[in-house]
């Protein structure tokens, strides 16, 4: 019966991962990826692996979104060259 929470976490991870693949825009993927990271952390916690869950939380909650969003900003800024969407 204690496995029910494991099943819930697994379903959430599967759903979030599918949603991350189905979305095609990198910004929206980054948002889904952030939720996927949280779901993965829950899965690791209910599987009694708090060290891995802590790694997932540390990397997935702020660092990965920041790296993705900075890369998106750089790529989007390049073709226009007008500086309209850049921070200058």
């Amino acid at each position, binding site marked *: 019966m204690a496995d029910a929470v494991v099943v819930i976490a697994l379903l959430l991870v599967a759903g979030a991962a599918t949603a991350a693949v189905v979305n095609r825009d990198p910004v929206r993927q980054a948002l889904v990826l952030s939720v996927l990271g949280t779901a993965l952390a829950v899965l690791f916690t209910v599987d009694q692996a708090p060290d891995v869950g802590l*790694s997932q939380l540390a990397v997935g909650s*702020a660092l990965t979104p920041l790296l993705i969003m900075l890369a998106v900003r750089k790529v989007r800024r390049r073709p226009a060259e007008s500086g309209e969407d850049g921070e200058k």
Partner: protein
Amino acid sequence: MNPRARLWLVVLGGAGLAALLAAACLRLPRFGGGHHPYGDRAVHAALTRHTANTIASVNFDQRAFDTMGEMAILFAAVLGCVVLLRQARDEHRARPRPAEVAPPVRRYALVALPVALVTGLYVIAHGQLSPGGGFQGGVVAATAVHLMYLGADYAALERVRPVEAFEAGDALAASVYLVLGLAGVPAGTAFLANTLLPYGTFDKLSSGGTVPLLNAAIGMEVACAVVVLLARFLDQAVEIEEESGK
């Protein structure tokens, strides 16, 4: 190779992989069972070395050599990033305009920065006692510094983050790990063998022999590496611009 043959090749390979995976899954031990041959040995070894968190014992004692490899991978990845994302000849730097941030958000960032930094240090320092360790705590501490960019602007971040110091810290921490590993060799034991220091009292900060020291070295390495990595990304995203010739 025509598309048809390619499809057959994929189907054949996929079917073989599926069959092997299914066979492997059928032989797995039952989920949540009580028999863990590797786990029992790892816990026993951790307890004989007075390390409360078995994961830390596996990472920094029983498999400290693997951790050295992981550290080298992170180091090399950051080095590659620094080389790739440097300012090219046809690019110039443009100072970003100061950002305007809502006062509550700015106050939150200024308060959360030291709190997150101390929490990161706590996670590093207690790696051998509770969940956590050098990697997790290092990432938390490095993320804390970037609250300056999120809550203020890039200029404020640059004033609290001298990148050169973090680059030197990265290299220094990596070499500290190696030196700690080599220190046992003159004493007649193996590289990275946990025989250098007394094992201490169980569940105290000083327990586990060299585990807390290696843990701290990894924490410093990861924190500095993440800061340097993000510095390159921020440079590219905020400051460096291509010469458009217009």
